């Protein structure tokens, strides 16, 4: 239990995908104009990361990795399909995103209208693939740990995007130099937020 909390907190603050590793920047900058839309995207990312990381964990450990196929019999113990890792991970992510899109469209048109346009964007959000690749590298012991890591990373993204959206909403009332308005200042604020988050790096959990 302690371990799970540990993984969860780590992935939110210390290993924050956006502000420590700078992944998922495209949608982060493009969809952070207002707090409302960023909350929508944030929840979608939590959801997708929470699903895809454990699925990819299972694929990695029972299908693709070295010796992962040994449950089929000793003959398969040497099979190494790891050259397919990227394409499998990305296929899982893309199909999950499209599945989520279809399900939401069917059961909750209101939610679909507010969230739907972001869903295709999530498929190429490098934070999502990054989440799966980090999971692969960090050798989590079981799918539950992987799930907590996925959810934690999603919450980290959520915090970061809602944070910058709030700042951008406020900054509308400030007298920013015209050429810097919008994107320019958003880049610089993200840089400053990243510097602030670097102070979490020293924490040992």
């Amino acid at each position, binding site marked *: 239990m302690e371990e799970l909390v540990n993984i969860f907190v780590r992935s939110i603050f210390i290993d924050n995908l956006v502000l420590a590793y700078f992944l998922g920047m495209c949608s982060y900058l493009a969809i952070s104009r207002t707090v409302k839309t960023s909350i929508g995207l944030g929840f979608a990312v939590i959801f997708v990361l929470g699903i895809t990381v454990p699925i990819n964990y299972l694929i990695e450990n029972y299908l693709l990795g*070295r010796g992962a196929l040994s449950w089929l019999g000793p003959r398969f113990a040497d099979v190494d399909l790891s*050259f*397919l890792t990227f*394409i499998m991970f990305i296929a899982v992510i893309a199909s999950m995103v499209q599945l989520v899109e279809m399900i939401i469209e069917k059961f909750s048109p209101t939610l679909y209208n507010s969230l739907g346009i972001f869903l295709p964007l999530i498929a190429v959000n490098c934070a999502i693939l990054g989440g799966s*690749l980090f999971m692969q*590298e960090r050798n989590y012991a079981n799918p539950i740990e992987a799930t907590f890591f996925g959810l934690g990373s999603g919450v980290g993204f959520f915090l970061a995007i809602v944070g910058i959206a709030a700042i951008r909403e406020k900054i509308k009332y400030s007298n920013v130099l015209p050429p810097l308005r919008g994107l320019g200042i958003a880049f610089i604020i993200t840089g400053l937020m990243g510097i602030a988050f670097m102070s979490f*790096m020293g924490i040992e959990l």
Partner: protein
Amino acid sequence: MTKDYSNKYIFIYSSIMVVVVALILSLLATLLQPRQERNIRLEKMQDILASINIEVEREKSEVVFWDYIVDTKILNHKGEELEGDAFEVDLQDEIRKDLAERQLPLYIAEAEDEQYYIIPLRGAGLWGAIWGYISLKSDFNTIAGVNFDHASETPGLGSQIADKHFEDQFKGKNIFDQDGNYRSVRVIRNGVDPDDPHRVDAISGGTMTCNGVSNMMYDGIRLYKPYIQKQVNL
């Protein structure tokens, strides 16, 4: 583009796509595997030789490898020798096993009448795996040389662990202190005293990768302690 296709079409389309892609990729992987494995094998030999400060071209490493490497051993965590070919042991598999089952390869090299003991290491950096070889002089304490490499560390920052100027810092450092306690060598930020036998200077901007190197060295060499103690006591 706006017209929507039937489920049947979608299903067939995606099946064909999966089959075609899988076919191309597996065909390619199978065809190219021998050459790729040869490259990896040659690079491994080159890296091992580099840890005892012998630079050879990759293509030639296979020829000279056995001129320098006089013996290889597989050890277990108690320092006992096991059967098998040390060169074929893949650390990537071993570090996932329980300690009791782990095979620990050791290469013994001879160059200019000096014996070197080469320990392979593997760990995690910031983005992916890092690995390396460290050679100890025959006192099993002084480092003769190291060679590090990495899968995907940040270019220009963490990737510098594979650069000569970083690796050269390790030469002459000790892994045990005067009282014989295991200390390893740690990579520390800022203001390292060059005479400190257990510390080297970190790469600025590459802290996470450097921490990975520290941990990899500490955890990796420690496993060989029982063997080293046996050798030194003899």
